[in-house]
C-alpha cells in the first residue's frame, strides 16, 4: 500500500487507484485485500442490516411518541394518549398499531440538539456530525456501505424511493452513495427502472459493451482520475452484477408479495417502502433508508396528521401501520435480531401550538425509535419535561444516535478516512453508544 506517487490520486478514503487495481474489481471497493480477509475472518456480527425510516421535515414528538396528556390544551394538542403493550408507556392515539409492538421498541424521548433548519438538522442526524463548510460528511448508510464487502449483486445502500442531500456519500467516493429506486412503490404497476435491457439487446451484448468500455478506459489511463471517475467505474460494475442476477432483481419486485402482506403494511408510500426495505435486507442489502416526506407540519395538525377526510389514514396512521407491520413481519421471519430498525426525523416540534394550529421546528426535544438488532425493547430512554420542551433526563444527541447505529452494525467508529486533500476524518468524532439500548 505504498503507491502514492504524484500521479496516483488519493481518494476520499485515502486508497489510491493502483491499490484498487491490485485488489481487483471483485473485492470490496476501497478495501485492501488484507482488509477483506480481516472482515471475512471476523466473527459474523449478529446485526447484518439496518432499516432507517426517515420522517423528513421533523415529526412532532408530542403528537406521536411523546404525548403530554396532562399538559394544557395548547401544549398537548388535539390528540389523546393511549396505553400500549408495555405498562407505563403511552403513545398518541393515532399510533394504535405501534402500541402493540412497543415490547420490541426502545423509545428515546430525549433526542436533543440546536440545529433548527431542515438541511442542517438532517445533516446532523444522518451523518452524526454538525455541518461544517470544510467538509461534507458521509451519511451513516454510506459509511456502512464502505465498511461492507461486495457480498452480493445487490447495492449495499438503498434509499426508498429517493434521497435527501444528507443521505449521500459526502466526501466519500460517490460509489458509496445510495441507490435510489425512484418512483412511487405504492403504485400497483410499480417497477424499478432499467433493471433489464430492451428486448433486442442480449446480455451477451451488454457484456461486450462493458469489455469495450474497459478497453477504452485502459487506453486513456494517462488521464487524470478523480473520485468521480472511479465511482463511475464502480457503478457500471454494480449495474452489471445486478442485471446479471435474477435473484437480486427479484428483491426489488413487490409483486412477489401477497396482497395480504401489502395490505398489512398499508397502501401508502411509506408502507410499500417499508415492505420493499424488508425484501432488500432479506436479500442482503445492508442499509435501507425509507424516506417519508411531509412531516414539516406548520399548520393544522388536527386535520393533517390524521387525515380528516379519510379516517385511519394520514401521516401518523400511515407511518404507524408501516412501522408496526415492519417490526411484526421481521419478527415472524426471524429477521428482527439481525435487522436494526430506526425511525426518526431531523427534530421535534414546538410544544406550543402556533397561530396556524400547527407546530414549528424544535430541535431541543425529539424522539427516535430503535427496534430489532439486539436492542432491548419495551423501554423508554430519557424523558422530556412536562411540556415536552427539553430533556429532563438522559439527553441523547445526534452523535449518540449515530454511534449507536454504527456500533450495533459492527462499525468501529474510531476508524479514520482521508479526504482528497489529505485531511484525516474520523468516522465519528464525538458521541457515545446509548448503552441502555442493549
Amino acid at each position, binding site marked *: 500500500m505504498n503507491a502514492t506517487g504524484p500521479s496516483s490520486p488519493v481518494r476520499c478514503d485515502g486508497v489510491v487507484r493502483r491499490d484498487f487495481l491490485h485488489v481487483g474489481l471483485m473485492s470490496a471497493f476501497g478495501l485492501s485485500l488484507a482488509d477483506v480477509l480481516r472482515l471475512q475472518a471476523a466473527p459474523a456480527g449478529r446485526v447484518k442490516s439496518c432499516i432507517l425510516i426517515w420522517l423528513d421535515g421533523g415529526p412532532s414528538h408530542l403528537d406521536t411518541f411523546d404525548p403530554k396528556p396532562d399538559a394544557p390544551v395548547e401544549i398537548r394538542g388535539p390528540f389523546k394518549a393511549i396505553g400500549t403493550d408495555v405498562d407505563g408507556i403511552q403513545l398518541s392515539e393515532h399510533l394504535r398499531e405501534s402500541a402493540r409492538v412497543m415490547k420490541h421498541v426502545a423509545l428515546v424521548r430525549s433526542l436533543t440538539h440546536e440545529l433548527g433548519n431542515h438541511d442542517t438538522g438532517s445533516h446532523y442526524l444522518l451523518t452524526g456530525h454538525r455541518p461544517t463548510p470544510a467538509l461534507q460528511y458521509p451519511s451513516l448508510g454510506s459509511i456502512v456501505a464502505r465498511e461492507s464487502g461486495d457480498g452480493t449483486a445487490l447495492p449495499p445502500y438503498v434509499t426508498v424511493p429517493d434521497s435527501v442531500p444528507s443521505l449521500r456519500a459526502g466526501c466519500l467516493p*460517490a460509489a458509496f452513495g445510495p441507490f435510489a429506486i425512484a418512483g412511487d412503490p405504492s403504485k400497483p404497476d410499480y417497477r424499478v427502472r432499467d433493471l433489464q435491457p430492451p428486448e433486442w439487446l442480449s446480455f451477451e451484448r451488454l457484456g461486450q459493451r462493458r469489455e469495450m468500455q474497459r478497453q477504452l478506459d485502459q487506453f486513456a489511463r494517462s488521464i*487524470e482520475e478523480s473520485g468521480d471517475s472511479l465511482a463511475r467505474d464502480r457503478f457500471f460494475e454494480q449495474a452489471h452484477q*445486478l442485471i446479471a442476477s435474477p435473484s437480486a432483481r427479484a428483491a426489488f419486485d413487490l409483486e412477489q408479495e401477497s396482497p395480504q402482506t401489502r395490505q398489512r403494511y398499508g397502501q401508502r408510500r411509506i408502507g410499500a417502502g417499508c415492505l420493499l426495505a424488508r425484501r432488500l435486507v432479506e436479500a442482503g442489502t445492508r442499509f435501507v433508508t425509507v424516506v417519508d416526506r411531509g412531516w414539516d407540519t406548520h399548520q393544522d395538525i388536527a386535520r393533517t396528521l390524521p387525515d380528516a377526510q379519510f379516517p385511519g389514514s394520514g401521516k401518523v396512521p400511515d407511518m404507524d401501520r408501516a412501522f408496526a407491520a415492519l417490526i411484526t413481519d421481521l419478527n415472524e421471519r426471524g429477521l428482527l435480531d439481525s435487522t436494526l430498525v430506526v425511525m426518526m426525523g431531523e427534530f421535534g416540534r414546538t410544544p406550543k401550538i402556533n397561530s396556524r394550529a400547527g407546530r414549528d421546528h424544535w430541535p431541543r426535544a425529539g424522539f427516535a425509535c430503535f427496534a430489532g438488532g439486539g436492542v432491548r425493547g419495551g423501554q423508554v430512554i430519557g424523558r422530556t419535561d412536562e411540556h415536552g420542551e427539553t430533556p429532563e433526563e438522559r439527553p441523547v444527541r445526534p452523535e449518540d444516535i449515530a454511534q449507536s447505529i454504527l456500533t450495533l452494525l459492527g462499525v468501529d467508529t474510531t476508524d479514520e478516512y482521508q479526504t482528497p486533500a489529505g485531511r484525516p476524518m474520523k468516522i465519528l468524532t464525538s458521541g457515545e453508544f446509548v448503552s441502555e439500548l442493549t
Partner: protein
Amino acid sequence: MSLPRWLLPFGAAVLTPQLRAVESPEWNFGTQILPILTKSGCNAGACHGAATGQGGFSLSLLGYDAAHDHAAITRELSGRRIDLADPARSLLLRKATRTIKHKGGRRLTLDSAHYATLREWIADGAPAGVPTLAVAGLTVAPADLLLKAPGDAAQLRVSAVYSDGTRSDVTALALYDSHDDAVAEVSADGVVTMRRRAASSVMIRFGGQVTAVRVAVPFQAEPVALDFEPVNFIDEHIAAELRRLHLPASPLADAGTFLRRTHLDLAGRLPNEEEARAFLVEPKREDVIQRLIGSPEFVDLWTMRLADVLLISSKKQGAEGSRVYHDWLHSQIERNTPLNNLVEELLTGRGDISRDGPANFYRLTTDPRDMGEFVSRSLLGVRLACARCHHHPFDRWSMEDYYSFAGWFAQTAFEGTRVVLKNRGEVEHPKTRKAMLPLALGAVKTEEALPADRREALAAWTVGADNPFFARVLVNRVWKHLMGRGLVEPVDDLRASNPASIPALLDALADDFVKHDFDLRHLVRTIAVSRVYQLASISTGVNRLDEQFGSHAHVKALTGPVLVDAMSQAIGVRFLPGELTAVQRHDPAAESYTLDVLGRCPRTDECGNPALYGGGLSQALHLLNGADINRSLRESAGRQVALGIGPMIESFYLRSLSRLPTDAERAYWLDQAARAPDPNAFAEDLLWALVNCREFAFIH
C-alpha cells in the same frame, strides 16, 4: 498613556485589567462586558442565547442586543443577578464561576481577568454606558498569515473600530474558529497553529462584526521555478499565488483537450467532426474561443445557467410564465444585454407574467421576507436567512438589516397575473413591531425620500459600480462554471468570514467586469484566454494536493443537459423526444427520467453541487438499459458502417473524444471489427462504449 490601545503590545493591553479603560474611562456594557459573556459561552445557542433562554435567564444570541441583555442582567429577577453592594455575591458571578449550582458549568475562574472586569463593572454600578456605541469593523494583524512549516504558530491581533472612531485591542475577547481544523488550529486567545502543508482560513468575530484571515503553509519547503507565462491579469494573480505557496503549475492542455474543454464549457456542446479535424491541423485557440462566444449555443448554455440561478420552472412561474421568462432571458443573452441592465429589469419587473418576462421574477414568492432572502443570496451572494430570527452568527447582518432589506419588496403584489405596486404596506420587525423602511445592505439610514417604485432605488444600488457584492458574486459564478471551483465556495456565500482563495483575483475580476459594462461575453473570454484556464488537468508534483489555486485544471464531470446533448451529438441521433436540445429546455419540472438520472438542476433552490443531482447506480443502469439511448444507438450506428470500418472508427473518435485514435487504438479496434460476427452490432457497441467511457464523461 497616549498610544491608541490597539497599538499596545498584546497581553499588556488585554490581560491586565487595570488597563481596561485607558482611553474610555466610562464603562460601556455593549463593548466591554457583553463580549466577556460571549467569549465565555453564556449566550451561545445551546445556553442562555437560546430563543427561550435557559433556566429563566435569556440573553440575545451571541450578544447582539446589548440593551436587552443589560436589562436582563440588571433588572430582571428584581435585580438579584447583580449585587451592587457586594459584587462577588452577584448571582451572575456566582453562577458563572459555579460557586453555586449552574447547569452550564464553570464559565469563569475567580482569578481570571474577565472575572475581575465583571466584578469591577458591578462595583461601579453596572452602568449601560453609551447604548449607541457599536463595533463598526475589525482589523486583524497579520491580515494574511503564511507560516513556514507545519507546527509553526503565530498570534493574531484583533482590534475593533467603534462607531465613534475609537479603537481597542480585543484579541482576548474575540471569538476564533478555524475553517478547517485539520489544516489550522486556533486557540481561544487567537494563536494559530498550522497542522499541515495547505491553506485555509480562520474566522474572527467580535461585537456583531466578522472577518477572516487566510492561513497557509507552502505546499513544499522549497520555492518553485514557475513555468507559467501570464497571458493577462488573471494569470498574474495566479502566478503570484503559486509562487507564494510553492506550487508548480501543470503545462498547457494539448490541442484536443483544449478544444473539447472550451466547446463544452463555453457552448455546452462537443466540437463536431469537421471542427475537430480542422483544429487539430491548425490549433488557433483564440479563434475558437471567439467563435464559440459568438455562437447560438453560447446563448443557450448561459441562458440555462442563469435560469438555474433565477429558478425558472413551471413549478415556480407556471407553464406560461416560465416559458415567457425563459424566452426573455434568452433574448437578452443573445443581444448581450449588460448583466447590470438585465438585473435592473428583473428587480423592477412589472407587467403581466404571461407577456413580460421580468414580471416573473416576482412570481417566486409574494412574501417580502422570502423575496429578500432570494435576492440577497442569488444576486448578492449574501445569505441573510439566519437574521430572520437573530443576528447572523457568522456575518454582520442584524435583524434590522434583514427586515429593512425585505422592505424593498413590501409593496410589490400580484393582481391576477399582473405585478402591481401598492402604495402602502411595510415589513414589520417581529420583535420591535416597528415598520421597517427599505435599506440597502450595509447602508446607513438617510432622510432621502424613496421613489414611488422603491425597487428602482434597490436596482440602482444593486448594480451600482461600488456595490461590493453584485459584480463579485457574478464573476465568482462564472469562474466556478469554467474552472470547476469558485474562488469563494459556496458560490453564493460571500461573507467577510469566508474569504476567497485568492481575494485579490476576485477583486480584479470584479473590477474588470464593471469596467467592461457587466459584459458576460467579455468576462467569459477573459477567463477562457488566460493560461490558467488552459492548463492540463494532469498534476505535477505536489500540485495534486491543490484544489483552489489554479495550479492545474479541475476535471469536471459533464452533467445533466450537457451530458445528454453531448451523447446525442456523438451518437448522431437525439434521444430525448422533441426538437429542442436538453440545454434549450426551459422547464426542469417537465417529466424526463433520462434528464433526472443524468442530472439536472431542479431549480427548487440554488444548485450548489451538481453532483447531488443524477448519477449513481441509477445512471449506470439507464446508460446500459435505457430504451431511449439504445434506440438512438441502433438507429445511428447502422448508418455509419457504410463508411468502411477504418474511417468509421476515426469518425467515432473525433465525434466523441475530439481526437484521432492512436495507432494502437486503431489497430486494436480494426482487429476487433474483423472478428465481430455482425458489423452493425460492432458499430453500435463501440459507439456505446465511446460515449460511456471515462474520457467522454469528463472535461479534462
